[in-house]
């Protein structure tokens, strides 16, 4: 079994054995979205107008919630040091950890987002674009988040620092993700926005593992 598959399998196995982490992220997402109708009133038109934005912002925050643990658990028990001495390049290992993070946060969020969109009276025409945008955008959240998680490793109050570092970098994903979903709901072309999201994904796939691996090496010094 290749190192990538071994690490991915291990992280998924850990996530399912300690099932709380996945459940927390999904529950946070659902609860935070459901708060909005209470906060701004149950006007269907208003809800439909802000639905895409609400879903994306809460998905962003939910993904952020789980990022702190991405490398920290391995850092605390010495696994990360041992991993860095494995023949498998650290960049590939970061990619495997991002893949596991996406499978346990981004993917569950994408699956329940359409149900929550229903609560928010999101326009039926927008669903395919919403799901496509989430499928393209949430991996970017994991990849960019990995850089932040690696940089803040071992810092005090790493969680707060991580949010301050990573949230500004999430803005492009937020803009194009919302634009794609809204354009489709208004009957406009959502393809350009989805292509831009795909470009963000390609870019972060190529760059984030290197940046995060470099930051991890710093953490061992």
């Amino acid at each position, binding site marked *: *079994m*290749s*190192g990538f598959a*071994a*690490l991915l399998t*291990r992280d998924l*196995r*850990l996530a399912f*054995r*300690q099932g709380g982490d996945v459940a927390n992220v999904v529950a946070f997402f659902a609860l935070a979205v459901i708060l909005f109708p209470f906060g701004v009133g149950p006007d269907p038109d208003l809800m439909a107008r802000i639905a895409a934005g609400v879903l994306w912002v809460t998905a962003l925050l939910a993904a952020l919630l789980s990022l702190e643990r991405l490398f920290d658990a391995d850092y605390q*028990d*010495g*696994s990360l*040091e*041992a*991993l*860095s*001495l*494995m*023949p*498998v*390049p650290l960049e590939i290992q970061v990619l495997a950890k991002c893949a596991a993070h996406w499978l346990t946060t981004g993917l569950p969020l994408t699956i329940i987002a359409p149900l929550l969109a229903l609560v928010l009276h999101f326009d039926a025409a927008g669903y395919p674009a919403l799901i496509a945008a989430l499928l393209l955008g949430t991996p970017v959240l994991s990849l960019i988040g990995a850089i932040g998680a690696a940089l803040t490793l071992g810092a005090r109050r790493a969680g707060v620092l991580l949010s301050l570092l990573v949230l500004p970098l999430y803005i492009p994903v937020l803009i194009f993700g919302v634009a794609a979903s809204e354009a489709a709901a208004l009957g406009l072309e959502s393809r350009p926005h989805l292509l831009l999201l795909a470009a963000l994904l390609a870019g972060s796939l190529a760059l984030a593992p290197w940046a995060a691996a470099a930051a991890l090496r710093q953490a*061992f*010094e």
Partner: protein
Amino acid sequence: MAGRELQKSFTGEGLACRRGERRVFQGVAFALAPGGALLLGGPNGSGKTSLLRLMAGLAQPEQGVITWDGGAIADDPAVHRTRLHYIGHQEAVKLALTAEENLAFWADMRGTANGATDALRRFKLDARATWPARYLSAGERKRLGLARLLASAAALWLLDEPITSLDAESTEILLTAIAEHRSAGGCVALATHAPLPLPGAQTLSLAAHTTWRQA
């Protein structure tokens, strides 16, 4: 024998190490032939762990060079990683995984999927193989960490305080494993406070090289 030593040896020359503002040691040298063993001694804080980390390539020396087969390890860290096992203070054991899963994972990462069961038996963990590691005692977790040495092959073993929390029987198992590794031409460097009976081992006391008292 002389030819073989030249062919495959692990040496360090004029090594100095800095941790933050503090120079930990300077002027450290060592040379290990195939089958050689190096015992690192010295009081707490004298840099035993720092030296092992330099040997593993986890950190770079401030001065000096470490070579394997005559080539500096810093020139090709990826190749150096394939020939070493580093077992630090922490066992790198995942508590939610079983003992066997833990061990098989590390063997998979090194690309050698054989020997996990055998390594567990050697360290008397076969009865615990399917237990989640959180139910293992401190000594058993330490043994699980050390079992990685046998689950996949590597020419150089770097062990940091390997016998901490081990009972007499487990220490004996480790010493046997080290002896077998050495007779197969492997090298071992280990930091320890307790005197360990390793025949023909060189001793390097870092106390003589410590610089922080003067600083």
